[in-house]
């Protein structure tokens, strides 16, 4: 048993990676789905074991191939990435039962196995970015996850999916290139690729070569910001989310941007923060205006969007603004809010996009104007949409409120009460776009598309309801969300110079 537990960090990535290859050979869609579901279900078990280990003991350091760091690749699990690993793997597992029908509905039979192959590759990539302690290895996994994502998006039924995928490919490649340039600069000045090792050498390097160190941050920052869709680098996201297959949208919305945010936290706090006083770096200066712009502009764009998937995509850009705002605050409450919102938003958006996927499955459209009365023909699905939507708004008693509460307290602690007002004011806009959907769904006469719709089969319905329940539940019991997040924030801030 010990031999297995010692290998957990490697297994976390290797299992989905090898699983992906095997999935490609399973020609039948259902078989490939069953295989992908099995593989996915193993990942949260490993993630949970690791979280347990770092919660009770200390950081896990795993030497890939037995080579000691910083020469070899180190997989390093601390509380922050153990938390993100659990989030990504658990949400994916919850979503898997949903995938079979939705994917079968939207993707041709002979391509389904490829889809699951790409999905597992994407999962392996995301888990890899999160677990690795090596900057270049992170780049490799970033590319693995991105390439598989481009394919998944391109598999959408609508032909515009191809354009969306292409757009994302160009932007994503630019982002990855910028990231690797940043890594290269850091390697030049420190001679290391290991995050922790770079951190220990950076203070000295920064004194000798201040400009390349700063330029490295700029490249890394912009590169990662493209992946996490920080306003105004978000332009790829609405189309990608809108035209990707429903399951892929839900999966990406819940996991991909979160992992990119994790990488930003890692670079800012564990690499730069431990070496250089963050107040001397322009991180907050850049993040404040962009976050606030995201919260307002993207939310307002969501209000005017009639395609519900695009509406939620813009909403994601806005919510990412809240997360980056918490990073900008750089205090205990703000950072806790940021990390807990990463968790809560994954659940909320997962639930919302799955609900939309069910609507696509039953009613065949997600144009708001065609969905009159959908709340009455698909009562459970749309009730889930409403409750997850309330959590998105931050109604007290839901998970979304917890995030907002920490962010508000963080802003007040920093003495920035206007920002506290901006947080609450922008969350009102969510009321407008969710409320608009509610009006159409419940108070319009039943339109033709939803007329014969009904709630989806249980395999699809249960994941929707589980995620919806979670996005309410974590507003009342916050042990796993805010409890861990506040310890993460403590560790990140405690390591700062």
């Amino acid at each position, binding site marked *: 048993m010990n031999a297995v537990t010692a290998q957990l960090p490697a297994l976390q990535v290797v299992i989905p990676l090898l699983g992906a290859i095997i999935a490609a050979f399973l020609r039948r869609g259902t078989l490939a789905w069953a295989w992908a579901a099995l593989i996915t279900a193993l990942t949260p078990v490993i993630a949970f074991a690791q979280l347990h280990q770092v919660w009770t003991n200390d950081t896990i350091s795993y030497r890939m191939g037995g080579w000691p760091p910083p020469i070899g690749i180190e997989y390093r699990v601390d509380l922050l990435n153990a938390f993100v690993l659990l989030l990504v793997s658990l949400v994916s597992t919850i979503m898997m039962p949903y995938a079979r029908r939705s994917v079968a509905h939207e993707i041709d039979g002979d391509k389904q196995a490829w889809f699951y192959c790409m999905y597992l590759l994407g999962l392996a990539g995301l888990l890899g970015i999160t677990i690795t302690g090596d900057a270049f290895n992170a780049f490799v996994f970033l590319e693995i996850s991105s390439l598989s994502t481009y394919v998944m998006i391109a598999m959408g039924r609508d032909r515009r999916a191809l354009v969306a995928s292409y757009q994302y490919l160009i932007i994503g490649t630019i982002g990855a290139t910028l990231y690797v340039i940043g890594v290269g600069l850091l390697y030049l000045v420190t001679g290391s690729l290991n995050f922790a090792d770079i951190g220990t050498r950076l203070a000295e390097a920064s004194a000798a070569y201040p400009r390349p160190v700063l330029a490295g941050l700029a490249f890394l920052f912009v590169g990662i910001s493209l992946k996490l869709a920080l306003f105004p680098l978000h332009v790829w996201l609405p189309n990608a989310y809108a035209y990707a297959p429903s399951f892929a949208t839900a999966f990406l919305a819940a996991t991909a941007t979160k992992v990119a945010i994790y990488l930003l936290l890692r670079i800012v706090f564990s690499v730069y923060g431990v070496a250089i006083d963050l107040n001397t770096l322009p991180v907050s200066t850049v993040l404040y205006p962009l976050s606030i712009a995201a919260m307002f502009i993207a939310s307002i764009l969501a209000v005017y969007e009639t395609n519900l998937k695009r509406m939620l995509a813009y909403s994601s850009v806005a919510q990412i603004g809240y997360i980056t705002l918490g990073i900008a605050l750089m205090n205990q409450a703000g950072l806790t809010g940021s990390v807990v919102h990463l968790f809560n938003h994954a659940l909320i958006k997962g639930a919302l996009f799955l609900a939309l996927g069910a609507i696509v499955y039953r009613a065949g459209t997600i144009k708001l104007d065609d969905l009159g009365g959908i709340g009455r023909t698909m009562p459970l699905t749309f009730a889930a949409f409403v409750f997850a939507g309330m959590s998105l708004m931050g109604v007290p008693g839901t998970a979304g409120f917890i995030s907002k509460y920490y962010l508000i307290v963080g802003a007040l602690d920093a003495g920035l009460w206007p920002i*506290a007002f901006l947080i609450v004011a922008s969350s009102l806009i969510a009321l407008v776009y969710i409320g608009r959907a509610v009006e159409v769904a419940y108070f319009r006469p039943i339109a033709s598309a939803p007329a014969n719709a009904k709630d989806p089969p249980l395999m699809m319905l249960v994941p929707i309801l589980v995620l919806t329940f979670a996005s309410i539940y974590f507003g009342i019991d916050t042990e796993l969300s805010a409890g861990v997040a506040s310890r993460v924030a403590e560790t990140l801030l405690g390591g700062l110079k």
Partner: protein
Amino acid sequence: MLAFAPESLVIAALTIPLIGALLIPLFHSAPNARESVTLATAGALTFTVWSLLPHVLAGARPAAIDIAVVPGLNIAFSVEPLGMLFALIAATLWLVTSVYAIGYMRGNDEPRQTSFYVCFAVALWATMGIAFAKNLFTLFIFYEILTLSTYPLVAHKANGEAIRAGRIYLLILIGTSMVLLLPAIAWTWVLAGTLDFTSGGILNGKTTPFALCALLALFAFGIGKAALMPLHFWLPAAMVAPTPVSALLHAVAVVKAGVFTILKVVVYIFGIETLAYAGSGTWLVYAAGFTVIAASLVALRQDNLKARLAYSTVSQLSYVILAAAILTPISAVGAAMHIAAHAVSKITLFFAAGAIYTAAHKTEISELAGIGRRMPCTMGAFAIGAISMIGLPPTAGFLGKWFMLSGAMQTGQWLPVAIIVVSTLLNAAYFLPIVYTAFFEREPAAHAVGAEAAHEHGEAPLPIVIALIFTAAATIGLFLFPEVPHALAKLMVGG
């Protein structure tokens, strides 16, 4: 009689409406069984809440449930006198309204009755949560649930007007609570380190008078349900809802939740003495006084009966705020008494308006000539409610005004006295003509106005008449036997 522990009664009061809300949809296709569930739920809740009363009067403060959501934010419940009074009013009147609603919803063939009753039960659940909340955070949760659960009731008719009203309703109520009330709560937490409702308040000596003043403003306008001008216009808009909703929710539960919250914040968060000493509440006298007078003037000009009642409610709610702003214990007693008095009287008026709509399909005051002779019970009850609104004995409305005036005179605050006197005249000016028209003017002849005016009708369906006679009787009963609200109100201010 079975004796239950007060703690379990609190939990029962907080679960019964929710169980009802879950059971009602199961009887979707059997309306009689469905309405029985509503009645049984309301009856059980009323019984539970009244069983709590002796404990609270004896000085107990039964508490139940305490969940720490995040450090400092707890979902916790505890029954104190003012909350007890509010819960008694809401639960009892829910039972009466349920009887009424059966007559009204069936008499008017309203659509989607199942979801109507479900939302109603959830709204009452939220009301119980507000009444029994131990701290501001818990109150805030249920305050928002109350808004969200009543939104479908406002938009019930699902036509353009109802949907627009629903939008205004949500945007004003959620908007004020998120943008003003939530920061006020966060600020209170930062200042005091607690959000618990505490006798004497928690902000004594914590900050400057100016900050107290600003904080009070955030609360007073953030609690949009109290309909302080200029944030009152959601209330007239909400009148598009079916009359049982206007009666129970927009004359009792929702709006009283607003003034109840303000009263609780003034008494248990700021503390009457802290505010009076700092002089930070003076502006609220002006704001509330303005609302009292201005809303009455607007009410004068309304021909639609429900609209006139709505503006009257806006005006009467500000009496409670005014009484709280006078900042003496005796006027706070008056505020609590007025919450009870206005509840039974205004619900009577709405019941009557709904009865007229059901029986005669009339909504405008100018159409009511002579209707008192066709519907003597309804209009008799209406007259009693109107007298109570004006504040004349022998009705409940007299008591609240009496205590408010005593409080104001005691401390020599002549402005509130003047406001109350002037508004009494205005109340008389917009209520008495309705009563006069109904009883003493002649019904227009058939050929004069058209066939519709000659529509033959008598009283509304029996459940409606029973309900409104009951509340009219309660309006007088509360004047004759004011012991319960008075005792609770005095306990609230520690007398």
